[in-house]
């Protein structure tokens, strides 16, 4: 009987180290953030006042919040689609049957966007996209544009520029994850598809995607959650501007916390990010458990 109980405890032992680390270090901060959102003047005052849901009411009445939410949706969906699209295509390409040395070189070169810290990425793109930068110079030389475009300063272009930068920066993560996933697909499936007369796209849709599904869902979920609150890249590239045209929830949160020193309102915004992310996650878990049974 004791043996049996011990054996039933097995999975908990395996989980213990991970949950212990996450639990000790993050459960208090997570709780604190939620608590802060119910108070006024936290951090800056020793005795903050409890205000209940007032911060939430204020935030929901703030048009700045809603426009940030809208921008976040655009940025997140655009980025995740970009990451998935470019990441998948490149994962397929570098997984193709080419010379192994060439494959190593291609794979390594294609993760380059990932290995530089966000400050450098942001500053470098500012140089590239500057009105006198090399991108405008190239576009003018080949006659695509007549006047230099202010990629990061024109409200109509800034979000698109940001999406390009975000895609550039984020696809290697997807590529590397999928590259690993692709290895678990038995080659027989492709052979069978070949015999059935499938072309490249058929094979992609009917073999690769279904087989990769567990990896795709997990990775896409995390990418979604991270992009949803992606901060350094946006903040360091456009700072939410021009105006507030690229202001997303994470930059709004930062602005509230460290520009305005309104930690309560920042926490409130953060909790809404938590809530929305939790919905994505629930959907993922429901889908996962449905697939399992």
């Amino acid at each position, binding site marked *: 009987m004791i043996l049996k109980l011990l054996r039933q405890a097995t999975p908990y032992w395996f989980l213990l180290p991970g949950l212990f680390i996450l639990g000790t270090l993050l459960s208090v901060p997570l709780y604190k953030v939620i608590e802060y959102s119910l108070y006024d003047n936290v951090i800056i005052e020793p005795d903050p006042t409890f205000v209940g849901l007032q911060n939430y009411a204020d935030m929901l009445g703030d048009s700045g919040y809603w426009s940030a939410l809208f921008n976040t949706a655009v940025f997140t969906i655009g980025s995740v689609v970009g990451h998935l699209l470019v990441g998948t295509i490149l994962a397929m390409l570098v997984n193709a049957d080419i010379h192994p040395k060439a494959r190593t070189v291609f794979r390594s070169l294609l993760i380059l966007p990932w290995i530089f810290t966000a*400050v450098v990425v942001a500053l470098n793109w500012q140089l590239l996209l500057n009105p006198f930068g090399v991108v405008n110079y190239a576009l003018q030389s080949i006659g695509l544009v007549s006047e230099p475009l202010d990629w990061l300063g024109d409200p109509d272009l800034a979000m698109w520029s940001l999406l390009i930068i975000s895609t550039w920066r984020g696809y290697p993560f997807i590529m590397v994850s999928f590259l690993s996933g692709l290895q678990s697909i038995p080659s027989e499936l492709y052979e069978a598809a070949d015999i059935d007369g499938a072309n490249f796209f058929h094979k992609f849709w009917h073999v690769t995607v279904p087989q990769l599904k567990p990896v795709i869902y*997990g990775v896409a979920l995390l990418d979604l*959650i991270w992009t949803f609150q992606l901060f350094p890249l946006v903040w360091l590239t456009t700072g939410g501007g021009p105006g507030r045209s690229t202001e997303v929830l994470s930059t709004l949160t930062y602005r509230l916390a460290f520009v305005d020193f309104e930690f309560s309102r920042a926490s409130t915004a953060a909790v809404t990010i938590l809530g929305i992310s939790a919905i994505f996650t629930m959907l993922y878990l429901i889908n996962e458990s449905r697939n399992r049974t």
Partner: protein
Amino acid sequence: MSGQISRVVVSPKKPWLREATRVRITRVSLYLALILAVVVITFPVLWMLSVSFKPTTDTFSLPPQLIPENFQLDGYIKVLQNETFRTFIINSYLIGLAVTFLSLIIGTLAAFAFSRYRFFGDQAAKLFVIATQMVPTITLLIPFFGVIVWLRLYDTHLGLIVTYLTFGLPYAIIMMNAYLNTIPKDFDEAAIIDGCSPFRVLFSVLLPMATPGLISTAVYTFLLSWNEFLFALALTRSTEMRTVPVGISMLVGEFGLKWDEMMAFSVIGSVPVLLLFMFVQRYVVSGLSAGGVKG
């Protein structure tokens, strides 16, 4: 026989190219696509390299120079001669490798539990793991900082290691869980019959098959700690404890930016990462490559 089965008629169309030619064309177009992708994608990196090799004045010259006219190594010399920068690079690698190693072990253990066992609270545990990623780190910074100080880990390498562990673990768990799920349970059972403890099943039998998953997790966790700036700055105060991103940010001053040094520093710091990746990616090959099971 009652009904008539309609036959799929495959028209014996004559292939317009010989098979060998077709294969060659596919291969060439594959290479062309890859080269095109690499050129487009690495262009910004080339520009960084270019900036690192020229005086800052030329960075802003018109027309832009991709190939430096006044080629110089000043940035590199300054960075290499700077003892502090070397400390930053060593710290970054130490912390990155420690985080990678620990995430792989701890993350894989948890992933194994999620992948191979149904137990009370498994969905809740998974939700918690992912939930830790849902709050913007900026807002977590202050309370997290408090916890680190309380644990007496402020201004230590260990403090940064556990910090990045908390950021990296969820991906490690999710990725390894998904990867382990692709390995048939027959292997576990065979190993159990062979006398493996669950621990042994995981480490001797499943992990060798999961190398690709391990590598993408390793790459992710390493780069996470390699690139992180916010906590690296907040949780350390001594120069000896700091990492490359903090060092780079120091070059962004109140009154200007040391472009050549910054780019040189980024390049120097990143070259070993690239070599490391080149080395490990050879193992991103099919772990299940035929033979383990008959599908």
